[in-house]
């Protein structure tokens, strides 16, 4: 059951990447073949195909992000429930927000070509990043408090 909960989100992220790659290679390639054969019932005009690829790329980024977040969340739960790392369990609370923050940074770095200068999206990203860092500080303070009391 735990394995299912940890692995399934990874499968989702891999599927999203695989689907985008398939679209980029096979669907675009087949559209060219349809054009060469003059099959206009099958051929899709470039504006539409580009629209599909752009939307698909965004979906791919979002799903990879969501999948990895779910993976991290379930991994933390798994490790906690199994009672591993009883001594240093605070380190997981610290690692989780950092992992999410790293994911956001990676998402924006890879996706900079389509995000461009769109401030609304960038602001949303910065807000999430700040929230993750605050979460990290909160966990750090909690750990220090617990250790001091102990």
């Amino acid at each position: 059951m735990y394995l299912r909960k940890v692995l399934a989100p990874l499968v989702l992220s891999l599927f999203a990447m695989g689907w985008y790659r398939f679209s980029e290679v096979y669907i675009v390639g087949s559209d060219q073949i349809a054009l060469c054969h003059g099959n206009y019932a099958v051929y899709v005009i470039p504006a539409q195909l580009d629209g599909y690829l752009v939307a698909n790329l965004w979906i791919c980024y979002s799903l990879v992000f969501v999948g990895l977040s779910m993976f991290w969340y379930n991994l933390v739960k798994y490790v906690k429930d199994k009672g591993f790392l009883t001594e240093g369990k605070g380190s997981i609370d610290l690692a989780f927000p950092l992992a999410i923050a790293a994911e956001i940074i990676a998402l924006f770095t890879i996706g900079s070509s389509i995000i461009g200068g769109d401030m609304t999206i960038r602001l949303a990203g910065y807000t999430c990043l700040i929230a993750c860092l605050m979460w990290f500080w909160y966990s750090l303070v909690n750990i220090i408090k617990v250790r001091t009391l102990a």
Partner: protein
Amino acid sequence: MPAQVLEPVFSYGWPIVFAVFAASGFILGWAAQRGNYCFVNAMTSIFTTKSFERFGALLLLFGLSALGTGLLVATGFIPSSDQFYFNYFGGWYILVGSTIFGFGAALAGGCNLSMLYRAASGYVQNWIELFGMMIGTYIFAIGIWPFQLFTMEKGILSTTAGGYVEYLPYLIFHSVSNEAVLLTTLMLAIPLIFLGIYLQIYTKRKWNKVARGERGIPGIFAVPKLGNSLGLPSPTVLPEKVKLSKEIKDLILLRKPYGTNLTTVILALDIILVFIVGAGYTFNYLVITSSDGGRFFEYIMMMFGQNLFITTPWFNDSLPIVDTSTLMVVMLCVGAFTSSFLSGDFKIRIPKDRRRLLIGFIGGILVGIGVRMALGCNVGLMWTNFAQLGYDGIIFLFGMLSGVYLAVKVQERL
């Protein structure tokens, strides 16, 4: 003769159209999974237990969808051409195809919607059905489509065109004016909504009667003892407001499945969303899952270097290589997976009785053949056609009911 042209109503680009269709696919998968929305199940329960509550919900869905899209057109917000443009041909094949579809889907254990969201929730039976459907599409393409196309072109028990020819306002009033659309919408949607609500009330009253022992079963109460059996605390009486807010919280946190009527309303709003956003761009209704069954088979074959759109009938003249419904189907599965995963329901499940896998495969083949003959499935044709104010959906409904009835009878003997 009404103009049959598509012009975008709103000026946004294709990425937005694709993204909204993908989002609506996600909503469809999520809501259908949470509400266990199954068209076949709604029909089998009529014949097995004479329960009409889920069938009533289905009629309510058709009525609400027709009312929403019809009013948008009648008020001039969306041009009528966007409602009738994708009305397909009507003929013998819809009745025959929907009967085969209903039979196959009831045998296999899922309509085209439930097959997809259950496959994404880990039901191996529905994976097999999906694969069977792909094979069925191929059998249809090479064995039946050339003949069917011939009858469609020659008008043998078939119309020779779609569009406004099958648009009920045009058929009844010979007009596609706002008034004609408004009257037709009310004539179609209101009876469906009332009938849907009545059937639900009727079934619940019947259950209450049976529980009170009015049918000769004295003192029998169907009371589930789930709470105690699960070792949960006995429920205490809560005030109405607290009850409602607890109910909403449980639904949001995925602790409880959605009720049938809540899902009905979400799905009706979903089809209205794509009706507006896709107007003038593309097929502005919910997924054409049946076509996509064929399309995904085509995609699989592409990876083996085979392009069916060059070599095979139907594949070469019926589908663009990609469209909004492709992303919608993918996101439907993602939505269903996400909701089943987050609610803890996701699990790979293999039927204990292995015969069911074979029955699922055969049922899937029949589903593939049936939906292609009918030119669409229970979503892309039946439900959609009610929202299109056409009559093909009504034919499909009766055909599917007869197919499901036959399957229930066969299942009793298996």
